[in-house]
């Protein structure tokens, strides 16, 4: 990775989807951009652990910034990903109205025919009308038969539905990596393993960003530090808002058991009564690769690093979807993950140049739908940065494309043969579940933003994401990583320093042996 430079035009703090979207946008106008992140890979924060939904904006409250940016972001998505070699698919969301959709109190004390009328006639039209007013096109009411034609596994209780066709899915970490690489290809510098510890200001203006790897002078700072955006803003004296953590857990199911189990995403429409609206999202979602995902939960946490999943959360997800999808394959969970949302106190995005500190721009409170809004967030922040002096004319040389090596599993037979012909290491499968080859892994390790840990390889290649969850491929991949990075095998980590896979070479714990000496790669 890049060494920390002494100075830069703009410093973007945080290499999540938001920071990388902004950095990529910036490189259309200037190459003098530095992206900082404390972790050893991009997309190591919330951007790696979310539900991948590019919502239409239908669930957001009218008049909020996040509603506006979500609708705009969704419209921009096809252009946003073009040239990046990232899958984005508008699979659609089916919003299902059930007897549970009306608030419990209303349903209990109203005559049946009234509830029926409300559910069947009023709710779907209300949803469509309110969506149209927010600027969302292509919302259609679907009757009960059509629901089962579209999604045969949905509860027989379904009354009527609304199909939201602009809704899509994108791989959030692949997108973030692609944006980072595209920015780097266009001149941005990326400094990982670099923690911001302070912001130096002078006369009410930004002067430098202080990190554990040294100082970097700059006139403009973009604070896209996710759950830590409040702390970073406080360092500059440009804060005054608080971000709290709200954890969300998701279960992922075996593709073999759940391919086509839901064809698009499915969510149950619920009016929760008095309870205040919180983070958006939730439902049954297919991943782009075909696994069923169920989640997420929403739990307030004190610790912003709390990416654990509790037994209660697992039970909650099972109970919740027991109704919507009565016979989902409970015994086919292959993975669970959880991420921490970054809501502000009023639940809206906080985007703007600081009034106190010139050159300091906050992009905070980026909870869901942050991923869906990313293109519009970058657009909006760019306007702010132009006002702060970034030229409005595009650079003459901007590389539109971010080429990526073809992955073996993505190819048809003839192309696979050609790949092996060109690189014999494509003939060697190292991850049997996802059919990832040695050459795929080597390419990831030597990519524009190199993969240096097991999880970094996994995010780029899918190796280890299948049903054996790395049981088969970890020995191979740790060996390839060690070989390509030129380090002993026992230094290979799962996700950066502090997550070493091994305590040392064999015999290192026996009397007389010192830990971590010699090379463990005995094969």
């Amino acid at each position: 990775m890049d060494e920390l430079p002494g100075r830069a035009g703009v410093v973007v703090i945080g290499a999540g989807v938001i920071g990388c979207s902004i950095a990529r946008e910036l490189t259309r106008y200037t190459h003098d951009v530095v992206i900082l992140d404390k972790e050893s890979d991009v997309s190591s924060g919330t951007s790696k652990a979310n539900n991948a939904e590019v919502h239409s904006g239908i669930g957001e409250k009218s008049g909020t910034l996040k509603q506006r940016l979500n609708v705009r972001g969704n419209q921009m998505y096809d252009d946003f990903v073009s040239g990046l070699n990232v899958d984005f698919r508008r699979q659609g969301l089916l919003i299902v109205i059930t007897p549970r959709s009306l608030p419990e109190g209303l349903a209990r004390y109203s005559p049946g025919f009234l509830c029926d009328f409300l559910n069947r006639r009023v709710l779907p039209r209300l949803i469509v009308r309110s969506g149209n007013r927010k600027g969302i096109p292509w919302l259609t009411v679907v009757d009960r038969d059509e629901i089962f034609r579209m999604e045969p596994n949905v509860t027989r209780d379904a009354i009527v539905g609304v199909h939201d066709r602009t809704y899509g899915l994108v791989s959030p970490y692949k997108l973030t990596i692609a944006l980072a690489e595209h920015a780097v290809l266009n001149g941005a510098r990326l400094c990982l393993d670099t923690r911001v510890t302070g912001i130096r200001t002078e006369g009410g203006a930004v002067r430098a960003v202080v990190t554990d790897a040294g100082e970097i002078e700059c006139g403009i700072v973009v604070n896209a530090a996710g759950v830590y955006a409040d702390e970073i803003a406080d360092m500059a004296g440009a804060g005054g808002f608080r971000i709290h953590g709200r954890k969300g857990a998701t279960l992922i199911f075996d593709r073999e058991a759940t391919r086509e189990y839901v064809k698009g995403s499915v969510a149950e429409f619920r009016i929760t009564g008095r309870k205040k609206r919180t983070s958006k999202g939730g439902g049954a979602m297919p991943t782009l690769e075909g696994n069923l995902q169920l989640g997420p939960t929403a739990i307030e946490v004190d610790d912003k690093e709390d990416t654990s999943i509790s037994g209660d959360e697992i039970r909650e997800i099972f109970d919740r979807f027991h109704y919507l999808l009565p016979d989902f394959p409970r015994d086919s969970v292959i993975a669970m993950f959880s991420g921490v949302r970054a809501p502000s106190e009023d639940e809206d995005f906080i985007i703007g140049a600081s009034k106190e500190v010139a050159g300091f721009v906050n992009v905070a409170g980026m909870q869901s739908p942050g991923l869906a809004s990313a293109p519009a967030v970058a657009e909006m922040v760019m306007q702010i940065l132009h006002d702060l002096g970034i030229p409005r004319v595009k650079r003459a040389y901007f590389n539109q494309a971010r080429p990526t090596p073809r992955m073996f599993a993505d190819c048809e037979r003839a192309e696979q043969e050609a790949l092996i012909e060109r690189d014999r290491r494509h003939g060697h499968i190292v991850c049997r579940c996802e059919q990832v080859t040695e050459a795929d892994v080597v390419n990831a390790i030597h990519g524009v933003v190199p993969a240096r840990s097991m999880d970094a390889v996994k995010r780029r290649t899918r190796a280890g994401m299948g049903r054996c969850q790395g049981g088969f491929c970890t020995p191979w991949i740790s060996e390839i990583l060690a070989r390509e990075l030129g380090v002993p095998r026992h230094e290979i980590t799962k996700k950066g320093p502090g997550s070493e896979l091994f305590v040392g070479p064999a015999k290192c714990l026996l009397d007389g042996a010192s830990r971590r000496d010699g090379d463990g790669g005995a094969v």
Partner: protein
Amino acid sequence: MSKVRRPDCVVIGGGPAGLAAALAASSAGLDDVLLIERDIELGGILPQCIHDGFGSIVFKETLTGPQYAQRYVDELARTNVEVMLETIVLDLAPDRRITAMNSRDGLVDIEPRSVILAMGCRERTRHQVLLPGYRPAGVITAGAAQRYINIEGLMPGGKVVILGSGDIGLIMARRFTLEGATVEGVYEILDHPGGLTRNIVQCLNDFEIPLHLSHTVTFIHGPGRVEGVTVAAVDRERLPVPGSERHIPCDTLMLSVGLIPENELSKRADLRLDPVTAGPLVDERMETSVDGIFACGNVVNVYDLVDYVTHSAEIAGRGAAERVLEGRPRKAPVTVVPGRNVKYVVPQLVRSFERDIDFYFRVEHPEKAVRMTVKAGGETLGRRKAKMVHPPEMAMIPASVPGGGSEGVRELVVEVAPDAE
């Protein structure tokens, strides 16, 4: 690409099952047998099993895993079975067409006259048992730990908690201790151990490693590397008892929570699977629901002794040879039903009673002084007595139909009952 190969038989997987199957097919008269193995050497899981305890039935002596495998590898070298190493089978179609791949030949098409599946099994992961907590480094399955220490020369942990008392977990408790690591204890959610008694004695008791029955891990602490686990006692429903939680600092959680047949290719070939074993349904010749595709070893069900694996493989090898050489049409099968205190039986189907058949099965719960029988209608085809049966120890009853006739037999029932005498 190069031309399509059409051997008599392809064996997929070169573990003890694949080795014995290839040998049996060859000695039963098949000239053109091809054994495909994705690893760099033959033997399957055995090269990493450096402890002894293999072969007590087949060779009447106890060998280490590598020794057991080597006997078959040596014998194979004296036949004309062709071995392709470092070659993975990517696809198997219901019409037996195989796509294999290696870095030398690229993608290879094979259309064999018979196929024997011998891909072994894989380990269940923390997610499959829905273990809550963080996702740090240091959560590892027992078989993987064994591979790291014994084959790769790497030490996966220094302070280890083990969840599950399956045999591999027990073996690894001893192995970790001998390598200088501390094993804090073995936690088992059931009220009886999952592994063989001899392993409890030799691997835990001899090293003073505590075994906590009716206990489970309720949380894995992280986030970078395992920092500890929370353990708790469980009630009859296997739910944690509130207030019984204890925090144990450790850097490794090793899981020995079960094995599942490797069934990717079985599914691709549209074989009918047994929901209990998760492997394909097989008949007395180890032939699956698809004509000409046989299966043996841990791909069918997880056997606890390698000797049984070998036995099943020899039957499959002979079956495949008969199929190719004689090509008789298959008869409609009779189903074998698990009766009282029987979890599952292999084979699940019987098409012919011409030869004696060994029925392998597991009981559902431990029971003392039992009579085990195979019955067809009112008639008893085989019986055995046992002082004690446990779920972890497979039982077997040989059975035969006098005269080999099967007319009128609708279904067979295997059952375990208290011994009246």
